[in-house]
């Protein structure tokens, strides 16, 4: 990428470098046995904030490393901004990468770390100084130019890593759990800053995380991965509200899953009673629906569809999360108290549980 005279503080509406990322049928095995990635395809739009979400070992980091060029796929292509980069060596890909542990060069100062990529691009010394100062100002680290990474706090290191990645004005920014090491407060602040910076720069951002809250809060779209495959791709609300598979439902947020048998478009529980669910014509055999705790309601015992005893209560501030052991032996979560002012129920109290059919999501078998 040729050096562009863009001032990161005042970016134009559309950055010339912002690029789409297309993954086509990527597969990767290590040592011939473990299939880390199994025919993964994704389309990430230019300027999109995209999260790869999944548990450890699901292949999300491998995907990121393939895009960055640290690994070569066994099969499939990687196209960035319309150019096939599958065979391109790392150092020519122009990707900004932020590592989980930041990977700051311990033997270099903050300024040297940030200026490293510019130096590799043979940019004149003065230009480097100017852009490094600008980038450090952008991440609020002005004044720390001469420090070594070991002399910085975790949050500061994170910002240096960020500045180092964006100063080269990459079309795509890759982040591997960049906020994983920070404490909760700092993390929320950095989430906010990262999101703001991404919008400001208009850069395409591919983001790996195992933290579903973080993914939901930041991303334009999320791909949930499991065992080397993509389970579902969608906007955060879609992923949360309409999980397609049991895995996605389970992984993203707290949810109640009710197993049963489909029969004539209705889901029948073990005792034969029909559970409230959207009509699912054409389904037969074992199946399941999922209902978010905040979509369930408590009633007096006989009125509910299921009944049981409250086992634990978690006061969340404004809301209370109840765990109810229902008589069939399962347990169900109910989030209650949306501004209705009813007092917190006591442990041991018998209650009934209800939900509306349209709030239940039918899971794929």
């Amino acid at each position, binding site marked *: 990428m040729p050096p562009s005279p863009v001032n990161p503080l005042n970016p134009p509406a559309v950055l010339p470098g912002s690029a789409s990322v297309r993954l086509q049928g990527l597969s990767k095995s290590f*040592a011939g046995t473990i299939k880390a990635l199994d025919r993964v395809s994704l389309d990430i739009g230019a300027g999109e904030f995209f999260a790869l979400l999944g*548990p450890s070992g699901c292949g999300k980091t491998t995907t990121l490393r393939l895009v960055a060029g*640290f690994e070569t796929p066994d099969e499939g292509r990687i196209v960035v901004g319309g150019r096939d980069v599958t065979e391109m060596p790392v150092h020519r890909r122009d990707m900004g990468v932020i590592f*989980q542990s930041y990977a700051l060069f311990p033997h270099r100062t903050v300024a040297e770390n940030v200026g490293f990529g510019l130096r590799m691009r043979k940019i004149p010394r003065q230009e480097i100084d100017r852009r490094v100062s600008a980038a450090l100002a952008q991440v609020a680290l002005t004044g720390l130019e001469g420090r070594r990474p070991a002399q910085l706090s975790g949050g500061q290191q994170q910002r240096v890593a960020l500045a180092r990645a964006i100063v080269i004005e990459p079309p795509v920014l890759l982040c591997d759990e960049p906020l994983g090491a920070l404490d909760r407060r700092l993390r929320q602040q950095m989430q906010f800053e990262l999101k703001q910076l991404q919008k400001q720069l208009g850069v395409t951002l591919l983001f790996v995380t195992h933290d579903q809250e973080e993914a939901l809060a930041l991303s334009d779209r999320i791909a949930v991965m499991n065992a080397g495959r993509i389970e579902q791709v969608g906007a955060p609300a879609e992923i949360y509200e309409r999980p397609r598979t049991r895995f996605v439902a389970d992984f993203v947020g707290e949810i109640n899953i009710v197993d049963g048998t489909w029969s004539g478009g209705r889901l029948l529980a073990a005792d034969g009673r029909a559970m409230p669910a959207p009509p699912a014509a054409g389904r037969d055999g074992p199946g399941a629906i999922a209902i978010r705790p905040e979509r369930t309601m408590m009633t007096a015992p006989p009125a509910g569809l299921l009944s049981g005893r409250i086992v634990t209560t978690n006061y969340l501030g404004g809301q209370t999360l109840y765990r109810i052991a229902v008589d069939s032996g399962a347990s169900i979560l109910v989030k209650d108290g949306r501004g209705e002012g009813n007092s917190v129920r006591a442990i041991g109290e018998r209650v009934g549980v209800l939900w509306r059919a349209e709030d239940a999501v039918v899971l794929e078998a």
Partner: protein
Amino acid sequence: MASNTAGRVSPVSAQTRRGRKATAVGWLIWPALLLFALFFLLPLGVLGVMAFLSGNPVNAPAVHFTLRHFQRFFADDLYPEALWATLRIGFLTTLAALLLGYPLAHLMARAHSRIAHALLLMAVIAPMLTGIVVRTFAWMTLLQDRGVINTTLVALGVTERPLKLMYNEFGTIVALTHIYVPFMVLTLAGVIGRVDERLEDAARSLGATRWQAFREVTLPLSLPGILAGSLLVFALSISAYVTPVLMGGTDVLTLPMLIYQQVSSSFNPNFAGALGLILLAVSLTLVIAYNKVLAGLAGEEVS
């Protein structure tokens, strides 16, 4: 997962390690291989050939193949006993160097002041610079019958006759230990320095005494250093010549001493070569076995 942030060894290296396909970096092995082929394996080969010949083919015309040097080794108890003494002295020296070297390495690794560290470093390195021969003489000065220690003890009336501090295995091991402790310390300090101090704090917070915390946390984590350091000291002490010959008196006879005698005054490089090969084979076997056992204990691969 979130706790993995300080991970120093990237998962990548672990993965690529398994696939046995040499990378471009592998070519960098060649300078070393060339050096060792020409200046170690070739000479070793010469020794190997000599060990099976009746004389030096360079100037003795009628040399022939023979096993007599090896037969000679086993025919007289003196030689196996010398081998055993060599290994015993090597083992005791290693043990002593470890016992003395560990505390010092620990102090060095944990010293926060730059000055203290530099001073300790100098104290450790200075003995290595004295020169092996002069250092051994210094020990003779200390330990001999009319040496510093015995003169002082006799003058103080602690003992009437000088203690037998040298001309035996004890004196040999003391002097060898002194010579090789620095190697142990410098190897260990690097490893101990890399053990996170907070781990000991964690152990102490769980009710461990300072000593227990050390024993349960730092000691096991520094096992790779102990392994590396003791291998180094063992290797060096079993091939030592000057110190045993000067300190050991009539009591000590080691293989390197015999080898030196064979070369320099019996003019039998063939038998010397055989003795060298036997020593190398035995020590390599021991070292590999030790490596396996301790690597198993440490639960990791140590090279």
